[in-house]
């Protein structure tokens, strides 16, 4: 009795410890960004100061610089707009494609699916030069439409691959039943397959949106004007001037941009995990 009680106690301490360490590890970057946002420059640069706390009165100077002297809000807007459009395009292309490849294309579907996924592995650093020709030919350079065009080239393959795993886990009998019960194949797809795959589709939405917000190479090479920037490029370009880093404003910009995504992840965490582990058990 004593022994098991001891062991239980021990395992609870271990669990708590692991939880505590990972929480600190994950929350620390946010904390760091938060205090840097409100630190006075003198406080930031004085080496003797304890870097983990505010050593002087907090200041709003960095936020003022960020919002008044850069087009930060515009960048956020650009990014959100591109994100939404790319998500819509990705869903419109990837959901039917993944379904067709899993259910209709027979044995070739699987191979084709892998082939499509392989295109995702070609790095943007190789592709941005030829793609910039395409963008220029279409007259899209220096507008957000250039990235709206290019981003689906990597979000769609990945999403197809992810959704294929999802659709494969849906028993065929469900669609058969729906078809016997009175739906067409397309009806069964819309009313049965999509509602059941909602966690997979949510995963695709979050994943695509995150990719759009963090993408750098294409956004940097295709767009120059300040008003057309994506947030991930605008921040380092306009808040690092020469060799001067506006640390406070940089941190504030990153914090504000990352919070909604962190929040989204948390909201759908369970479904998100289900999306990535589909087929792992059973």
């Amino acid at each position, binding site marked *: 009795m004593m022994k098991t009680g001891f062991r239980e106690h021990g395992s609870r301490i271990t669990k708590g410890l692991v939880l505590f360490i990972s929480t600190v590890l994950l929350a620390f970057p946010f904390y760091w960004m938060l205090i840097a946002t409100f630190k006075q420059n003198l406080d930031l640069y004085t080496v003797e100061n304890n870097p983990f706390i505010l050593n002087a009165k907090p200041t709003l100077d960095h936020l003022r610089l960020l919002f008044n002297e850069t087009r930060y809000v515009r960048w956020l807007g650009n990014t959100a707009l591109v994100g939404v459009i790319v998500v819509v395009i990705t869903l419109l292309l990837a959901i039917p494609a993944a379904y067709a490849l899993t259910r209709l294309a027979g044995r070739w579907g699987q191979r084709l699916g892998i082939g499509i996924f392989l295109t995702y592995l070609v790095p943007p650093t190789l592709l941005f030069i030829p793609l910039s020709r395409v963008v220029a030919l279409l007259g899209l350079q220096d507008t957000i439409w250039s990235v709206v065009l290019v981003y689906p080239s990597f979000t769609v393959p990945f999403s197809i691959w992810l959704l294929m795993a999802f659709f494969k886990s849906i028993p065929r*009998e469900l669609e058969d039943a*729906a*078809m016997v019960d009175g739906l067409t194949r397309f009806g069964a797809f819309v009313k049965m397959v999509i509602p059941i795959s909602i966690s997979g589709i949510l995963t695709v939405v979050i994943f695509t949106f995150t990719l759009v917000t963090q993408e750098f190479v294409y956004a940097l090479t295709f767009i120059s004007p300040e008003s057309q920037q994506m947030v991930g490029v605008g921040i380092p370009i306009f808040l690092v001037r020469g060799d001067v880093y506006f640390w406070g404003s940089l941190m504030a910009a990153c914090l504000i941009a990352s919070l909604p995504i962190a929040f989204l992840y948390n909201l759908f965490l369970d479904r998100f995990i289900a999306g990535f582990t589909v087929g792992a058990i059973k």
Partner: protein
Amino acid sequence: MAVVETRNLTKVFKQGELGAVNNVNLKTREGEFLVFLGPSGSGKTTLLRMIAGLEMPTAGEILIGDQVVNHLAPRERRIAMVFQSYALYPHLSVYKNIAFPLKAQKVKKELHKEKVEWAASLLGISSLLHRKPRELSGGERQRVALARAIVREPSVFLLDEPLSNLDAKLRLSAREELERFHRRIGTTTIYVTHDQVEAMAMGDRIVVLNKGVVHHFGTPKEVYDEPADTFVATFLGSPPMNLIENGDVIVGFRPEHFRLSETLDEAKVTFKFHVENVEYLGAEYILSGSLLGGRFEGKEVIARLLLGHAYEPGTTYEFAVPERHLKFFDRSTEKRVEARALTWQ
């Protein structure tokens, strides 16, 4: 209600390979409970799926209610199907599952509630209507699947191994329930199974299939007592029929007809039976061993006997089969042939 008929129905999945279903000609009777029985891979499910419209036939015709339905989609065939996994819609409540066919077939909305409640009460699941499928037991799921099938009052029921997901005890009660259910609604039903006991117990008639070919089509009694060939003879019955080769015929007899010679006072064929193993099953014995002496030396056979006499492994007994219970099959075609006189020693 309707009669289902297939004419030379064939399904070949891969060109050049043997068909999954070959030239099947069947006709149900009005309101009949027809069972497709066969081992896995015998084509019974493919046959059912073709009747449902989920699989396109390679050749042949399917008729439901005297109308060729080959070109009709599943939803246009006025059928209902219960699947092996039940295929309940996981994201919908039991109520919505049952109402689903009504909604999909655009039945007037005012009628939904009444019809769902009728189907649910028929199967005793009225109290489960607000639950999700994952919150139901195996037996309850089956009932929901059945309720979903009857709610639109189909002309034909197709059931694909609906009991195979239940444990043995539940299977028996679910089977009885299905039988009662069929008697009550009287709709033509086609039932697919690999379980001969289910087939014998439930079927008005049985279609025995193997490798896509119909081996026997008859009542349970015909199929059991007068098997059309050696496949049917050995597939039905547990333990299966004993087969021994004698000249150009194969002679078969059921284990329950293989008895102590002294208990039989009719025309019979006697054998020396060396018992090697005795299984006591409560109500009966299963004896396995081999024949001794003569041309059948070493041939393994099984006997199934009621209690009353004790048998010792390692002992040789005088056993016999009444002549009227001997079945004769052609040795090359394995088809049933007329009884004939043979030399036995």
